[in-house]
């Protein structure tokens, strides 16, 4: 008994604890409610779907922790697919296509970071702006249709649709690797701690000799590059550059990041928390879909859960004070 109570304490002390319990509760509920939910096929499918939000979520969480906001990832997802497909169609090379996509993503990150971190323009406004500009640009370039992949490279197809050992989708593998790498960076490399410090108290960080704008700038660039990775995976899955790809994606990501305990005011949060947030929302959407609940109701339930979870966090924090 005391053993299990200890375990419970460890779980509830770390901010990830309640999230993990919440995820297990969601999985448990749907496992009982539906007999196909717990199949290997379904679980790995959900992981595959969750991986895009997870990749982009890493970047968004880092930007949030640094005390800024990034909501541009939805349009970026669609935008980077264009250079990817166009270059691939022209050169027949996956590597060049990916390089082109990363170049566009990098430029967007640099622009976001320059405006928000160096010129100190409110980052919500800046990234909302890029969200609109990119989506508009995509519509203009594509003429509101999809650009199909004519090169038909097997490697490109495998990227989003293949499975490791035939089980785990590659995007899920990539998301997991990126998660571990960035969790290590944020928790154990000086750079990661600088990000926390810049968001936790920028004045202190500056006095300690940090280049706060550069730290925040780096956050925006990393965020855009990770969203680019998600965009490449999505394009592979769709087999084309789709003009409406990623519509509303930024809201899913922000919701998951906030659900995962990352503070909107900076300095607080963990990437594992964010990942759990993504998984909870993904399993919830999948499970509710299986129960034949109308999408309208799925939205209502998801929204209610986010509000409840964030309120719970807030109450717990206040109690401590």
């Amino acid at each position: 008994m005391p053993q299990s109570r200890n375990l419970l304490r460890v779980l509830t002390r770390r901010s990830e604890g309640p999230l993990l319990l919440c995820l297990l509760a969601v999985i448990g509920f749907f496992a009982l409610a539906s007999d196909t939910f717990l199949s290997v096929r379904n679980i790995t499918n959900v992981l595959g779907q969750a991986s895009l939000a997870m990749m982009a979520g890493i970047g968004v969480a880092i930007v949030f922790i640094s005390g800024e906001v990034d909501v541009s990832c939805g349009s970026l997802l669609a935008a980077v697919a264009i250079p990817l497909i166009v270059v691939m169609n022209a050169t027949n090379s996956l590597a060049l296509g990916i390089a082109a996509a990363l170049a566009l993503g990098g430029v967007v990150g640099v622009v976001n970071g320059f405006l928000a971190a160096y010129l100190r323009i409110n980052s919500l406004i800046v990234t909302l702006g890029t969200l609109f500009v990119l989506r508009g640009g995509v519509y203009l370039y594509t003429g509101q249709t999809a650009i199909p992949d004519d090169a038909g490279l097997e490697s490109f197809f495998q990227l989003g649709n293949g499975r490791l050992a035939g089980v785990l989708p590659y995007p899920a593998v990539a998301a997991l690797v990126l998660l571990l790498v960035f969790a290590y960076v944020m928790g154990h490399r000086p750079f990661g701690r600088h990000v926390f410090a810049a968001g936790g108290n920028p004045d202190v960080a500056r006095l300690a000799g940090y280049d706060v704008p550069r730290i925040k700038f780096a956050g925006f660039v990393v965020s855009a590059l990770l969203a680019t990775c998600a965009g490449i995976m999505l394009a592979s899955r769709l087999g084309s550059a789709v003009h409406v790809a990623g519509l509303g994606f930024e809201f899913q990501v922000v919701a998951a990041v906030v659900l995962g305990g990352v503070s909107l005011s900076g300095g607080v949060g963990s990437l594992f928390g964010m990942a759990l947030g993504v998984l909870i929302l993904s399993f919830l959407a999948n499970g509710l879909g299986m129960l034949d609940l109308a999408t309208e109701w799925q939205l209502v339930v998801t929204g209610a859960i986010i509000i409840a979870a964030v309120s719970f966090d807030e109450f717990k924090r206040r109690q401590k004070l």
Partner: protein
Amino acid sequence: MLSDPHSPALAMQGIGKQFPGVVALADVDLTLTGGQVHALIGENGAGKSTLIKILAGVYQKDSGSIRIGGVEAELRTPRDALRLGIKVVFQEIALIPEFTVAENIFLERHPVNRIGSIAWGKLRADAKALFDRLGFAVDPGARARDLPISTQQMVEIARALAHEARIVVMDEPTSSLTPKEVALLFTVIRRLKSLGIAVVYVSHKLDEIFEIADTVTVLRDGRHISTKPVAAHTQDSLIQDMIGRRIEFLFPRARGPARSDVLLSVRGLSTKDKLRDVSFEVRAGEVFGFFGLLGAGRTELAKAIVGFDPIRSGEIAIGGQPLRPHDTRTGVALGIGLLTEDRKTEGLMLEQSVQHNMSLAALGGFAVAGFVQEARERSAVQGFVDRLRVRTPGLDRPIRDLSGGNQQKVLLSRWLLRGLKVIVVDEPTRGIDVGAKSEIFALIDRLAGEGHAVVMMTSEMPELLGLSDRIAVMANGRITATMPRADATQEGLLSAAIA
């Protein structure tokens, strides 16, 4: 290479600095010598913190030169200053709230292992060793935000020593330390001296200057007034240099004896964490002082009786009317208000103007039919700015731009403007210069004379003895003794506080 400990470690010459509308510094010199403590004193707004911020690379000087070890130094960013061995402990405490104490200490330079990962074990061990060496009892694993101000201050000081600084600057380091902690700090400063480190020490507490400093530089209105060995000064000559006049009585007393009507009555007050069965009454015209060591529960008491914090049991009455606990609205309506100890987080709206900060609690009084009469508000605010000699470039300036002591004066005025029956002040003179202190004492005396009740929490024994009518001593959340001032002695108070 070992340098001569008595050669000038740093020389600032002809330093000038302007802010829009203010000349903060004009032609100021400061020469520091290794192994010496150089005190920097002056009124609120004299320019002490500005000079230090230039040294720290936070502000850029407009004119003048800074030479370190004979070489012209460019201090463009805090990083430049750190690289040149200058470490500043700022007036406003500067820790990352979510980080542990150990991580805050090594914020400038996280120790890393071979592959560049942060060496958490070494970080904690180094912090622990540092605290042991300094004799500070602080848990390196504690989160900074969970610590009281005094402990955060000690962490700040430890932080300065964690890096091989050649010049350590402390801006009012003792403003939230207990006498015991101050003694500890002085031991640390003497150790720094023996290591050949140059120390700059800013304080408004003159007795500290005489105890620890070798040399004193006085600034007034941004100008350099004098630099002398401390032995060449007396208390009076220092004050004379600082404010350009003499102070006859630090604790003026013009009021008569307290009246008989009770304005504040507290019965059997207990809170969840700290307070146990606290009862006292304060009458109109009375200054009721609370003494206690840090952690005795004075701040908790202050917050509970104004309705800021919840209570577990007990009754509070203002002028005979019961106060609903944990409800500052009725508290203010009944006429009780608190001047908080922690002005930065609980008192000030940093980005808002001096005027709005001061008139916050009194706006209703300036309103006609729901509209605030700007002109009346302004003239009332201006009145207090003049009376307390608040140094501000204008009433519309954000209060962030004021010096620390002047911010405190604005906060005190907030309640004076509101016209309260009972005023609770928690460490009212923290960071305030001698001139303004005597103004504030005179003001408290006058308020009591006008029939207000004043509850004063302070760890400054002379203030307590100089100003109170009665004194209560707290220890561990209880009142351990209550005595009229005539019966109080320093020894008596201390022994009751330790009980």
